[in-house]
């Protein structure tokens, strides 16, 4: 079972276009999937779930779409806060540094994080206004500020300066809609991740599809750069 699963929620716009709906309708339809996947991951025993909701590059989308997304996310966060609390899910938001994020939304993020900080179930990390390179740059800044001598910097020490340093490496990334790119997502943490690219668009992605991805992951042979262990003819 992967410990840390991440989803790049891709295909909302195409989902809407195929139905001759405005792109925003696709984002709206994504809400159901998000809740479904959170529940499926929790039930399957995934300890860490990360969702890529909004990247630092997404600010270049049309202003009306960005506005709509901000409103939608705010409504979704508020609507599902009691559920997340009741299910014992610890929520936190990765990124959220841009000044274009409405104050109210940032407050809601903070409130939800505060509210669920004591939960010991699954940890849900929502990457909002997130960029993997920016996190690495921030970590470098933080290292320099703490006056760490160059020789002492190790991978572990560097990772301690990333936001949410307790987050384990990502084991499995699911990117829907068949796109096969990293898109600046949690660059440090996906170093050894397995990737699956289901063809289904995010609004159509459901719990069974998610479980299928987990199944694919289990059949993969994770080597972390080593050689495959011999399974046949090994005397032990």
């Amino acid at each position, binding site marked *: 079972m992967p410990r840390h699963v991440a989803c790049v929620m891709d295909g909302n716009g195409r989902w809407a276009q195929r139905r001759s709906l405005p792109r925003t309708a696709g984002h709206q339809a994504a809400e159901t999937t998000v809740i479904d996947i959170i529940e499926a991951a929790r039930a399957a025993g995934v300890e860490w779930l990360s969702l890529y909701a909004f990247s630092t590059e997404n600010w270049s989308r049309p202003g009306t779409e960005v506005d709509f997304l901000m409103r939608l996310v705010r409504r979704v966060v508020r609507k599902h806060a009691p559920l997340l609390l009741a299910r014992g899910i610890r929520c936190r938001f990765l990124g*959220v540094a841009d000044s274009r994020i409405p104050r109210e939304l940032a407050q809601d993020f903070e409130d939800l994080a505060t509210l669920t900080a004591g939960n010991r179930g699954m940890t849900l990390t929502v990457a909002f206004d997130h960029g993997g390179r920016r996190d690495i740059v921030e970590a470098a800044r933080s290292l320099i500020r703490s006056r760490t001598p160059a020789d002492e910097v190790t991978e572990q020490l560097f990772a301690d300066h990333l936001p949410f340093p307790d987050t384990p490496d990502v084991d499995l990334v699911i990117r829907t809609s068949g796109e096969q790119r990293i898109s600046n997502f949690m660059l440090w943490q996906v170093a050894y991740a397995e990737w699956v690219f289901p063809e289904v668009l995010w609004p159509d992605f459901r719990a069974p599809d998610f479980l299928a991805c987990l199944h694919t992951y289990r059949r993969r042979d994770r080597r972390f750069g080593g050689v495959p262990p011999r399974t046949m003819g090994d005397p032990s």
Partner: protein
Amino acid sequence: MTTTGTAGETPLFGPDSRFSGFFDDPRWALAIIRATVLEAAHPQIGAALVDNSTFVAHPWRRLRNTFLSMRRMFGADPVVREREAARLNRLHARMSGSDCRGRAYDAMDRATRAWVVATLFESAVTMCRLSGQPLDQDTMERMYAEYRAFLAALDGDASELPEDLDDFWRYFDRVVEDELENTEAARVILYRLFDHLPAPALLDGAPTLWAAGRAVVGPLLGAITVASLPEAYRRRAGLPEMPGVSTLMQGAYCAAGLARFLPEGWINAESIVEALSLSPDSDDPRARTVAALAARMKRASALLRLLTPLSGVLHPDPAPSAGVGESRRSAEEFFRDVLDQTGDGHLDWPDLAAMARELCTRLDLDEPEETRLYDAFAAWWRELQAALDTDGDGRVSAEEYAAAVPSLAGPALIRVAEVLFDATDKDGNGTIDADEYRTLFRTAFHRDLTTTDGVYSQSAFVSDFLSFMSGRRTNTAYDPLLAGA
């Protein structure tokens, strides 16, 4: 020093005194506010308060210091009392100046100091009358003797207060009628202090709750205090009379007086004051309990905010939200929380003197260490003034400070750090151990503190002090010490 009154009877100070009996009395809280207004209405005291006192910006720290000082002055041990009186005298000797109308004030003025004691005594008597349990003549006379002895302990003798209780009332009425004014300090206490009262350290984590409670209690306390002031003063100062307020005031005193039916020991002023001034991250178990409670309240208010219906309008965030792991504060915040100790919006010598005073009080310094620390702060003030006071008005405004956000860590500030280190290092062994650290910061070593072999070295101490004072790092041990309310 003649501190004993009538020989052979119970001593005037100590646990059996009338004063000690009132110590844990909730009415005393109301009476102290009233007494403070009457003090502040005296032009000399009012001017000194406005210039020097930290009670607007740091009321809880001030309350705690006053409380401990009173306890020492009225305690049974004459050595402690004499030492405390000497300390108070040194502290007040450093306060003099002139008010906004150019009249000089001097915190050592004997007649003025007598008035402070007079207001305390009169407020104690009045509090008993207002709550419907007046004192009989004997008790009153005995209490008067105690307060005169208090003055004598401070001033050497009590000749500024009439010897006889009957003459005292004439003296009191005369001062109220002739000398009291509607001073700025009195107005600040009546109308500003309670409306803007910052939360005590312990309740700092529940700002919404504190603000809601304050919005109700603040104006009530102001109205109750006004109604309990002598009629002659209310008329002179032009204070409002509102229907029903005198009933409310007497009701408040009566209700507070009902506490006498509570089992003994339920209300202990000392533990209340001590608990309030605990910082939530201190290692005291009570602080931890409250920190846990505060965390729950924080979660509850977060849930409440999330459940309230949407307002609809979204505002772009005016300021970029704090980055991850950042613990710096803006220049304005630092100015308001740490530098401007008197809360008047300017950085002036009294602000730095208040810091020196707080450090001396914490460390319980005697001469000559006290003067050394004050001198170091004075040198720092000259350094700051030279670097920051660009418009030459002799003080530093928040704008001047923010504009410069300067290389504050000049030689004079480093000197302050060194003198403070020497004063904290009581045994003079060149390092600060856990006990010495606790004396200054009232908590054990923090985990992130760079200590070697359980001691805090001078270089680490100096660099931490400088990074607090100039690098504006928050979350250090200095926050509860200098920024706490």
